[in-house]
């Protein structure tokens, strides 16, 4: 403060002089200063606006590309699903149609037999007409006195009764036979019903498949038309897939860490050396390499099995070559798993040695040995670590599937996140442009407020001068008057 005072012993006077000088200087520099501020405002605001526009257009372009990629990916998936469903349908048709002649023949035969049974059951022995009436008539004849006639009549009566009994017997047998035929026919109906159920099952399966195909086809058509609903569904599906695969990959990552811990200590024994790479000892790098090799072998196994499609070149190999690659990858995985199981056993032995050394250095050999002897004698930890060392590589090999899902869905999710980021930054830049413009304008007003005294004096002087000139229009000194002629004559842009 003292440094700026002209007369340190008279601060008020010094400040007054300084104020007057600053008023004069700033008043004199008002026009160029306002022009400079306006230019600064235009430059900064324009730069922000251009940057915001560029970001917006970049985000739109990126969004368009993401959309294309997403729809293309969805189209590919839908085609694959349709192809799979058609194949399934073709298989169903082939199987069912292959069995259809036999089914038809069996149905035909069954129906024919049923018809035969019906015909057979309808053939009944003719009933003796009027036998009961004849017997009754003979029985009711009045007894004549002639014994011979009476005898003849009795004979006729007996004969009629015998014939009636025989006819009744025959009729009963015929009815029983018909019942037997009909009873046998019931089993044929069951067969026919079973065959029809089989047909019905096949038909319903085909109908369900065709329903699914209809659904897939509808989705495919929506994707083909590029409908926004299809895009939303695909985007949501990609996000779900990303989250799930990320979770699974994270779990696999923890498994890899456990795997690494099993290998790291024995690798220090196998790969000694003081060299460090990327801030890690070489033995640690070697342990990491083993774990990563297990993952790589697993990816190759999955690729050659056709489960994943991370490497198109592997997929394009001939089946024989693919079998060779599969065999090599599987053998490598087995070898690595065996090595890891061995290292896990070695690790346990090394840890035991370390513990014994620590106890020895602490001077507690006898007491410590008795304390740790029980768990050390047990082979369960060794077996457990060996089994873990053998199994973990196989589990890690499975990471190829979620990894592929993560890569595929991650591309879309990352693209979408980038679009959001670009839009957000663009929005912030637009706001920043507005803020800068208004801040610079406020600065110009503050400038005018500071030199309000000379400004008012000028205004009064202009007013008197105007009166003297016979009431000419008084020129109001406003910031807009500071604009250069080119700016003033610029056409006003029509509002959008």
């Amino acid at each position, binding site marked *: 403060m003292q440094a700026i005072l002209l007369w340190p012993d008279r601060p008020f006077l010094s400040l007054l002089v300084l104020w007057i000088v600053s008023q004069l200087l700033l008043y004199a520099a008002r026009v160029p200063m306002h022009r400079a501020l306006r230019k600064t405002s235009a430059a900064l605001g324009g730069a922000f606006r251009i940057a915001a526009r560029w970001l917006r257009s970049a985000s739109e372009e990126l969004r368009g590309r993401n959309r294309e990629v997403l729809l293309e990916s969805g189209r590919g998936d839908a085609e694959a699903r349709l192809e799979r469903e058609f194949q399934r349908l073709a298989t169903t048709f082939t199987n069912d149609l292959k069995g259809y002649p036999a089914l038809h023949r069996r149905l035909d035969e069954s129906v024919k037999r049923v018809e035969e049974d019906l015909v057979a059951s309808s053939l009944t022995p003719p009933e003796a007409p009027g036998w009961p009436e004849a017997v009754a008539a003979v029985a009711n004849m009045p007894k004549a006195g002639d014994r011979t006639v009476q005898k003849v009549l009795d004979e006729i009566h007996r004969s009629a009764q015998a014939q009636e009994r025989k006819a009744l017997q025959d009729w009963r047998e015929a009815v029983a036979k018909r019942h037997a035929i009909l009873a046998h026919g019931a089993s044929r109906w069951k067969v026919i019903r079973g065959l029809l159920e089989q047909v019905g099952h096949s038909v319903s399966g085909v109908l369900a498949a065709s329903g699914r195909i209809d659904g897939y086809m509808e989705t495919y058509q929506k994707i083909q038309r590029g409908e926004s609903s299809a895009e939303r569904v695909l985007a949501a599906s990609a996000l779900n897939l990303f989250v799930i695969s990320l979770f699974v990959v994270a779990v696999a990552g923890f498994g890899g860490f456990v795997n690494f811990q099993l290998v790291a200590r024995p690798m*220090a*024994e196998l790969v*000694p*050396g003081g060299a460090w*790479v*990327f801030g890690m000892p070489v033995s640690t790098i070697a342990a990491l390499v083993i774990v990563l090799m297990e993952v790589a072998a697993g990816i190759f196994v999955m690729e050659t099995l056709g489960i994943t499609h991370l490497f198109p070149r592997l997929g394009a190999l001939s089946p024989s070559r693919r079998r060779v690659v599969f065999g090599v990858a599987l053998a490598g995985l087995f070898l690595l798993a065996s090595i890891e199981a061995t290292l896990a056993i070695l690790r346990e032995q090394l840890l035991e040695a*370390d513990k014994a050394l620590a106890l020895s*250095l*602490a*001077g507690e050999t006898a007491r410590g040995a008795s304390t740790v002897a029980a768990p050390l004698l047990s082979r369960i930890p060794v077996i457990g670590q060996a089994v873990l060392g053998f199994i973990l590589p196989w589990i890690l090999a499975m990471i190829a599937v979620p990894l592929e899902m993560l890569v595929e869905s991650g591309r879309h999710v990352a693209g979408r996140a980038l679009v959001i980021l670009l839009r957000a930054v663009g929005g912030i830049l637009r706001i920043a442009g507005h803020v800068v413009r208004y801040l610079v304008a406020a600065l110009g007003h503050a400038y005018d407020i500071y030199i309000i005294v000379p400004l008012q004096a000028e205004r009064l002087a202009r007013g008197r001068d105007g009166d003297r000139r016979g009431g000419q229009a008084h020129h109001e000194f406003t910031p807009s008057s500071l604009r250069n002629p080119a700016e003033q004559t610029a056409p006003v842009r029509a509002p959008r």
Partner: protein
Amino acid sequence: MRTLRNAAALAIALAACADARSHARAICVLVDVSGTYADQRAEVVRVVKSGILPRLLPGDSLIVIRIGDHSYTKDSVEATVTLDSQPSHANAQKLALAGKLDRFAAGDQRTRHTDISGALLLAAEYLRETRAGRKSIFIFSDMKEELPRGAQRSLGADELAGIDVVAMNVKRLAADEQDPAAYRKRLDGWGTRLAAARAASWNVVLDPSDLASQLGEH
């Protein structure tokens, strides 16, 4: 041919990524065997065996130097070892060193003078020779220097550059009990001298269990 070229490029890239810094640690333990502190020898060996030795990693170095009448001599070096890069070999070396320390603890050597500066000079030379990334000196003494007649000791300006110095288990003398200020003044004096020799740090540790933090293990 292309594969070979790629492999060579990868090897060069990996070599370029190789960490040239030394990550090894070198520790020098100075043990006072003069006067009354000689009685502490067994305790010092116990602390070294249980506190420092197990924490050493393959590639680390440990040097044990006696503080006696004339410490700036090679005879004052009680034991020195640089651990093998193979952990099991390193363990065997630790065990052998522990045996040496046990024999040292069982000895009855007792000197009249306390040449701490000479031991520091010797320790600094040994530590520099190891080219370790981290260097530390642990002093087990009462920190009262009593040089023999005619002995001249001065620490150079860069004598202890980059070396952490820790005074462990500093025994208080009878005079210190009468006047604690003398004890503090003595330690402050050492702090000033070591700072002048550009020691990386100077700490006084009373609790041996605090060794882990002094060894940079957090």
